[in-house]
């Protein structure tokens, strides 16, 4: 991941593997030996996929999930960057608060999900709150890490040349800490996405996660597979976008 450029060898293996899985899926389905509830036939799933991308239901659910993700990420990054900046700027505060945040992050927040639902209702608010509280930690922790690892000599040099707080932040702290912070933002975004999907699945009325759960309950496996494929493609797209963004920022940060 830290090497720029694409590893064609790895890509070829991944494509070949996927092709193999799809072929196997098709062949197993064609023999008719496996119950279609457990593994629907591939052509049926493709057909369903073609159908669902034409329904407004998919886009309505997609809109709900993406809105939740954007809101959760906005809240988490605002809070995470602010807390991270103020804690990371002082070595002492970093020593006091960093282990506390790391310890809290180690508690599986997922057990509190029923309380979130109780507090914020079964709609979008509970998913936003849950996603934001999960995503807050990697963002805050990486911001602390990024800012506190800036070489103190840079700060001293900038100060001795008469930089004020704003200049110090813009010209020294931000560029030096940016790669680590961006990694945190990327992790936060993915964690927010996963926890939103998970909370929708456990208790939700709308959104991609609750749609998958509803189809699973109805034993409508072919359509469920189609939805799962859609979500996996969405996640891959999100991941690619985040990787591109991260690469741009880390290059900008390391540029001499």
């Amino acid at each position: 991941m830290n090497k720029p450029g694409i590893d064609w060898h790895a890509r070829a293996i991944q494509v070949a593997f996927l092709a193999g899985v799809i072929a196997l899926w098709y062949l197993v389905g064609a023999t008719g030996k496996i119950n279609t509830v457990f593994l629907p036939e591939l052509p049926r799933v493709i057909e369903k996929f073609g159908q669902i991308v034409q329904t407004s239901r998919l886009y309505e659910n997609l809109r709900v999930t993406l809105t939740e993700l954007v809101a959760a990420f906005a809240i988490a990054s605002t809070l995470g960057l602010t807390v991270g900046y103020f804690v990371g700027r002082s070595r002492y505060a970093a020593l006091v608060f960093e282990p506390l945040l790391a310890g809290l992050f180690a508690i599986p927040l997922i057990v509190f999900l029923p309380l979130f639902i109780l507090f914020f209702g079964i709609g979008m608010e509970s998913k936003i709150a849950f996603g934001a509280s999960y995503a807050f930690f990697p963002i805050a922790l990486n911001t602390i890490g990024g800012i506190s690892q800036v070489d103190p000599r840079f700060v001293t040099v900038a100060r001795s040349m008469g930089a004020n707080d704003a200049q110090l932040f813009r010209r020294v702290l931000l560029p030096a800490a940016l790669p680590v912070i961006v990694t945190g933002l990327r992790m936060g975004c993915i964690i927010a996405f996963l926890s939103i999907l998970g909370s929708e699945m456990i208790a939700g009325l709308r959104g991609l996660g609750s749609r998958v759960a509803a189809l699973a309950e109805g034993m409508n496996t072919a359509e469920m597979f189609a939805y799962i494929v859609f979500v996996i493609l969405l996640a891959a797209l999100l991941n690619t976008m985040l990787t591109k963004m991260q690469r741009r920022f880390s290059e900008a940060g390391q540029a001499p």
Partner: protein
Amino acid sequence: MTDATLKAATDAGTPSWREMLAKSPGKARLLVVIATFIVWEIAGHTVLDPHFLSPPSAIVGALPRILSDLGVQKALWASFYELIIAFAIAIVAGVAIGLAVGLHRFTFRSSLPLILLLYSIPQVTILPLFVLYFGIGAGSKIAFGVSHGIFPIMLNVIAGVQSVDDAHLTAARAMGATRMQIIRRVVLPHMTPSLFAGLRLAMSGTLLGVLLAELYVSQGGIGYYSRVFADSFDPPATFALVTCLAVMAILLNESVRRAERRASFWRTHQR
């Protein structure tokens, strides 16, 4: 740096306190935790709605109540059992696959892309499939826990094996070590730090997987009870349950740390 030190110290009061806190961030941290609990306790009795965030004293009070409940006892054991089994499977399978992939150039080049591909799948989305294939009992929770825990172990073992110095391998081979001896005497000791970093990540991953699956569908387990308590407007019980869970996680984490210290004793001898 200094102004924050001073500020933190002035919060504490007298000059002797100030010095003590400035010297040991650990004590300041403890103070922050205690202050949080005090504020929480006071807020719990005044502004907060007791239906949602109960004060710490109520949570401590709820502990004996839920622990004496037979159903909860069973649930704690069930979750603990699922967690341990899933963690054990993840360790055995993860280390075996990691070694197999990491030790040979061919398997490394051909399998690592596949592992990364599988790792990039958002696992929550396929949770219904786990339930479909493994049933609503302990099986699906264990399987989902394994699928969360195995990746950090595999990837860290692979990274650890890759970091073994070629000179050490050549030397061992030159002295006539067999393949098993090389693995036992050179590779395994070398990758302990990386392996244990993976184990700790896998620990929280497995816990997350088990709890997610329990919350999704189950007839027992901590996830199930946290839902029951929330549905019956009993937040002190939920928090008490989370306290038990935290103790469980800390115990497991601590045993991993102990094992790490034991496994890496030779490092301290060396340096």
